[in-house]
Each structure stands twice: as structure tokens, then as C-alpha cells.
């Protein structure tokens, strides 16, 4: 995928995710409600591709406002990934040379890949993740399961152990999937299912939309950086 194409597709997915987020904030309180109205407008402009540099600057400034308003992210990692994708796309437009454009997007590709690997690594070194106990606690103790029925999944030790290892192996293998086009496509499908499951079971709908916003950049990254070496 060409760099310009990857940036554009990424912007469309990101804009869609921000539209959904803004509609959620509009149901909330002030002052985030007013900022959401501005972000909704900016996101729609980004969706159709009008003045992306200025629009992304506006979205970045409003993201910083939210960070200060909530003294950190409102929704943890999904906000962090949103800002990261936005910041990298913004820098890619701002870059004076093709080289710096590639550096900005390369950083995003690295962080996106690393997000899976680091998450898998901290699990595999933890005995409670390896034996399924940690995931059992996620279902049984935390406030994440969306219903009492889903909370009951935590009672099945065997299921929790299997699910833990599926998640760990997928997360650790993700960076290596980039070495081949087929494995990469398979990894993206699994990633989609993984984020869908998190949204379905734990209500993490913002993650489901924001992570794929970076996937087009991974397509570009694979053809630009990985393929010349394999």
C-alpha cells in the first residue's frame, strides 16, 4: 500500500471512531460536551478529507484538553492509541521530506505492533496469566464483564486457561506475522476478532474502533520496511 493511500484510509477509520466517541461525550456533562460538538464537526471534516492538517491540529488540541480535564485518559489505552494515531498522521502531513513522513508513520507502526507484543509479554511472564487465574479474576472480580451471565464464565477454570493462552500466543506472535503477507492478513483478522470479543464481553467498544485505525499504516509499513529484507 502506498503511503498516501495508507494515511487516507487511516484517517477515514480514525474519523469514524472519533465521530462515535463524540456522540458518546455529547450524552455526558459539560465542558466535555461542548468540546465534543467541535470534535464531531472536525471528525466529519477529516472523514471527507478537508484540510487534514488543520483538522488534525484541532483534534489534537481538543485531545489535550480532554487529557487535562480528566487528568489522564478517559478510557485508558483507547484514548492513548487515538492520540498516537492522530499525532503520527498529523506529523506525516507536516513533515518537510518523505523521510520524516516515513519516520512519523514508522513510529505509529512500531507502537501498534508493540502494543500487542508488550501486552503478551507481561502476561506470559506472570504465572497467574499462564495458569488462567488472572483471566478468571478479570471475569469474576473486575467491573468489566457486561452482564452477570458473562461474569459466570470465570467459573470455568479450563476455559479461562485456554482463553489466556490463545490471547498470549496471539499477542506475542503478532509482530512476526508481518514477515509474510498471508500470516499478516490472518493476524489482522484475529486482531479484529480479539477487539470484538473485548467489546462484546467487557464493553470496550472504543478499542474495537480505534486499533484498526492504525492497520492501514501497518500495510504500508510491511511493504516499505519488512519486504525489502525478506
Amino acid at each position, binding site marked *: 500500500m502506498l503511503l498516501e493511500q495508507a494515511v487516507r484510509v487511516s484517517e477515514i477509520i480514525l474519523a469514524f471512531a472519533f465521530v*462515535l466517541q463524540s*456522540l*458518546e*461525550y455529547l*450524552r*455526558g*456533562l459539560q465542558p466535555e460536551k461542548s468540546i465534543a460538538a467541535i470534535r464531531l464537526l472536525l471528525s466529519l471534516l477529516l472523514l471527507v478529507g478537508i484540510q487534514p492538517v488543520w483538522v488534525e491540529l484541532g483534534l489534537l488540541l481538543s*485531545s*489535550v484538553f480532554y*487529557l*487535562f480535564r*480528566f*487528568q*489522564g*485518559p*478517559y*478510557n*485508558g*489505552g483507547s*484514548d*492513548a*492509541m487515538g*492520540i*498516537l494515531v492522530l*499525532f503520527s498522521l498529523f506529523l506525516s502531513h507536516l513533515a518537510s521530506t518523505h523521510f520524516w513522513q516515513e519516520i512519523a508513520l514508522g513510529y505509529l507502526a512500531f*507502537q501498534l505492533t*508493540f*502494543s*500487542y507484543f*508488550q*501486552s503478551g509479554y*507481561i*502476561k506470559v511472564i*506472570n504465572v*497467574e496469566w499462564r495458569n488462567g487465574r*488472572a483471566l478468571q*479474576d*478479570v471475569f*469474576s*472480580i*473486575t*467491573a468489566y*464483564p*457486561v*452482564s*452477570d*451471565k458473562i*461474569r459466570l464464565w470465570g467459573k470455568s477454570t479450563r476455559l479461562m486457561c485456554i482463553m489466556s493462552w490463545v490471547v498470549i500466543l496471539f499477542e506475542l506472535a503478532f509482530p512476526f506475522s508481518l514477515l509474510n503477507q498471508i500470516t499478516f492478513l490472518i493476524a489482522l483478522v484475529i486482531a479484529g476478532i480479539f477487539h*470484538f470479543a473485548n*467489546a*462484546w464481553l467487557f*464493553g470496550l*467498544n*472504543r478499542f*474495537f474502533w480505534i486499533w484498526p485505525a492504525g492497520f492501514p499504516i501497518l500495510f504500508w509499513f510491511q511493504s516499505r520496511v519488512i519486504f525489502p529484507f525478506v
Partner: protein
Amino acid sequence: MIKIILPALFPSWRFFSGIGPSPRIYYALLHIESDEPTQWLEFRPKPKVLSVKEQVLRLFHNPQWNETLYINTCAERLFEGYAEMRAREIMHRLLAAVARKEILVGEKDNYLVYRIGAVMREEEHVYEQITFTSSPALLKGFC
């Protein structure tokens, strides 16, 4: 400023690295400020089951759930020590729930107070411990 912006640009992706105490928010309504709460109710208890239609809708639009996650983040910060902003933020959102009739109040209810329970596991034993109780907030103007 750096402490807030830098983690967004150089994030750590340590999702669920350890499962710590998990917060539950309870509220009580009081007639007068000095009353002792008699009945604590869980704020936004989980439904027994969600239909497929509700689940699909929540993929696109889930404001209440995401606000609850934010409230839980505030509560987790309070586990680490008292932080006025976090305590105020939880109260602010509970009062907003009163204003939009999500929390129903009686005619004689004039104050709202909340407390945070921490659910945790020790070996095979799961238990809950109350870690924080707020000061009562006046409901006037919210209901």
C-alpha cells in the same frame, strides 16, 4: 503537564498486567446531613443478561458504560490515596445521574453520599472492603 501528555505519546501497553482490587460504587440518600446511611444501593448494577441487539448497539454507542469505566478509574486512584479531584468527579457524575432521574430520590431526600468498595481475592477467598466514604452533597438543584 509532561506527566499527562508524555504517557499519551509514549504509552505503556501493559493491559491487565496484574488484577488489583476492583471498585464498586454505592450511594445512599439522606434526609439531613448528619444522618447515618441506612441503605446503600449499587450504582449501575450489571444486568443479568444483555440481548444481542443491545450488545450490537453498544459496539457503536455506549456512553454510560464508558462513563462507568471512567468513574472506576477515579475510584482506583482513590485506592492509591486521597485525590480531591477524583472524589469530586465521582460525586459530580452521581449528581448528574440524579438530575437525569437515573437515581430516583424521594421528597425528603436532601443529601447524597457515596462509598467505594474494593473487591479483591486472597487465595480462594473473594471479599469486599469499603475504602472510601464521601461527605454528603446537597441535592438541591439536581432533582
